[in-house]
């Protein structure tokens, strides 16, 4: 996957480049709009990360310009601004998703994956998910572990489904709140942890291999190994 990172803060640029390369992306960087435009014309990128606060051009204007030049790749907008209307404007004006700084790397990677999935031709939607001996029936909204039916609430099923869809990848608390509960909040309390704790109690029974793992300071991951 070839990725163009447009970011003028060198500190952020360097660690993002490192992390993205570690995640398997081939990363080109541009520190301003002009360079970004040239690079985007010269090579075909699969995905772009654009910071809104560029020295020479507004990030939104850059995206609009690139769209005019025929760049069809999805864009993840990074914004250090506060106002929501910037985000909405960003979404409406051709950027596909946005992320406010500071962010968790896991969330950045998850959003990139989502964008790539969205731009890829839609395959047939699976009706069952398997992770080792855990099986989710998405139509009947039922989950079984080693053939044993799990007594999950509808909300717990949605949470488990989200974890399963991201098997092997880290999901942060704010990602869970966004995708499972549909809200972008940052609670002062451990509300998400308690949900995960309860879910784990139901999914990972005694003597079974633990599936839901906690990565301290980062989030959670459903491990299939």
């Amino acid at each position, binding site marked *: 996957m070839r990725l163009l990172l447009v970011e003028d803060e060198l500190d*952020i640029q360097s660690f993002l480049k490192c992390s993205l390369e570690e995640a398997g992306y081939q990363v080109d960087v541009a520190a301003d709009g002009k360079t970004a435009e040239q690079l985007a014309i010269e090579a075909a990128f699969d995905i772009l990360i654009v910071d809104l606060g560029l020295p020479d051009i507004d990030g939104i204007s850059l995206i609009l310009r690139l769209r005019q030049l025929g760049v069809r790749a999805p864009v993840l907008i990074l914004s250090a601004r*506060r106002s*929501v209307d910037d985000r909405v404007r960003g979404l409406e004006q051709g950027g596909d998703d946005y992320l406010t700084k500071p962010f968790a*790397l896991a969330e950045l990677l998850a959003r990139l994956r989502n964008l790539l999935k969205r731009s890829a031709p839609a395959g047939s939607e699976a009706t069952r998910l398997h992770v080792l001996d855990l099986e989710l029936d998405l139509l009947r909204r039922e989950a079984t572990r080693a053939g044993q039916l799990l007594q999950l609430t509808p909300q717990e099923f949605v949470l488990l489904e989200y974890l399963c869809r991201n098997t092997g990848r880290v999901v942060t608390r704010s990602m869970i709140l966004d995708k499972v509960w549909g809200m972008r909040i940052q609670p*002062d309390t451990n*509300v998400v942890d308690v949900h995960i704790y309860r879910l784990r109690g139901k999914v990972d029974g005694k003597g079974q291999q633990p599936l839901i793992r906690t990565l301290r*300071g980062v989030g959670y991951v459903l491990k299939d190994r």
Partner: protein
Amino acid sequence: MSSRTDSPKVRSAAWRISLWATLAFAFGTMIVFIFLHGFVAGDLQRRSDAWLSGEVEVLGDVAERTPKDALYGRVVGEVAELAAREVPDKQISTSNSDNSVFFLQTGGDGSLKLWVGAGSGDAFLKAIQASIITPDRPTDLRVPGFSVPFRVACIRIGDGSHIFLGLSERDELRVLNSLRLRFILLWLLIVLLGFGIVFLTTRRMLRHVREITEAASRIGHSDLNTRVPTTKRNDEVSQLAFTLNRMLDRIENSMHQLHTITDSLAHDLRSPLTAIRGKLEMSLSSATYGERVEPIVAAIDELDRLTDFLNKSLDVAEAKADALRLTRSAIDLNELLRVMIDLYEPSMSEKGLQVRLRSGSPLVIFADAALLHRMVANLLDNELKHLPPACTLTIELRNEVDVARLIFEDDGPGFDPEVLLHLFERRVKGRDSNGHGLGLTFVDAVARAHGGGVTASNRESSGARIAVTLPLAAE
């Protein structure tokens, strides 16, 4: 404080103004008319008096010169009748009736000597004898049987007899009556017309004022671009509109500056935070699990709390300046509460707390969903952090006429009375609270940005009560 305009009140102002203006106008014109009426009446009197005095002198002269023989009565009578035909202002309709002028001569002993006029002169003689008529100037005389008084002039001739010439004031009164009638009709017409014009003009002016008021009240937190309507007329009202618009320009400008400041502050702080967080995460992924991990994890946690604090501080700063930017949409508060309680319920029951939601039907308001989520999360975080185990939290959603009221009640220890007074101020927190003291300030800020408010109190029995009001319709 209601900024809504009450249209009946405005109409009554138009009524009031036009009523007073019309009253003043009517009163003024009436005074002018009374003055004119007095002048015209006096002039008519003078003219008839002059005629009477002249004629009575002529008659006196004729009576004196005519020999007192059998023809005396006929001669004087004919002269008197001739004079009667020259009555000033005499109208044709009165020429046939004989009682508009009379001539009467009394002898030296006061008996009726000669009478020219309608009927017998006895009634007139009696009336003349009853009143004092001096030869110098004409006097009013009321005669029984006649509704209109007569103006009578008198002259004394050589043989000691008196000659009286009377002229009915009927014609004079007729002129004055017709003048009065015409004036009253015209006066009514003008007063009504004036009232209508004043009322319409005032209402039009006040309507412009009302439009300005309505536009000004519509200009809320999220909408500072609108301006009040102006007209091309350069009167006081449009001056007011221009001044308001200039003021709004200045407010918008300073609001814009505030946004620029908070935005650049956010940007300048968030960029290094992003870099720090990223580097910490990288070192976390490369670190082997063990003792090196713990400080990094703690640092990331601290960093996230710092970010949250930064966001809330900037939100509160903007909200305190009534500059919080809202992206409104239709939100079902009932559904929002249900989802939020669903999210918080496990944590609550883990701590031994019970949550009850008292709410029935959907309650849709037009508000900023993200801010409302964060507001309710703050309230729930607050309860979760401060309520001791085995307490119950009751959340009630009420639909009151034009506001939604959201009530959080618990049976815990309640607020510290010292804290209660300053609960919604920045940085105020309970003694054993480990928060940054922005939670309830933020709740207050969000409620106010939506045109609502928050009140906090201790319940009579025991426990705390926080009530948030949010208007159902956007301002």
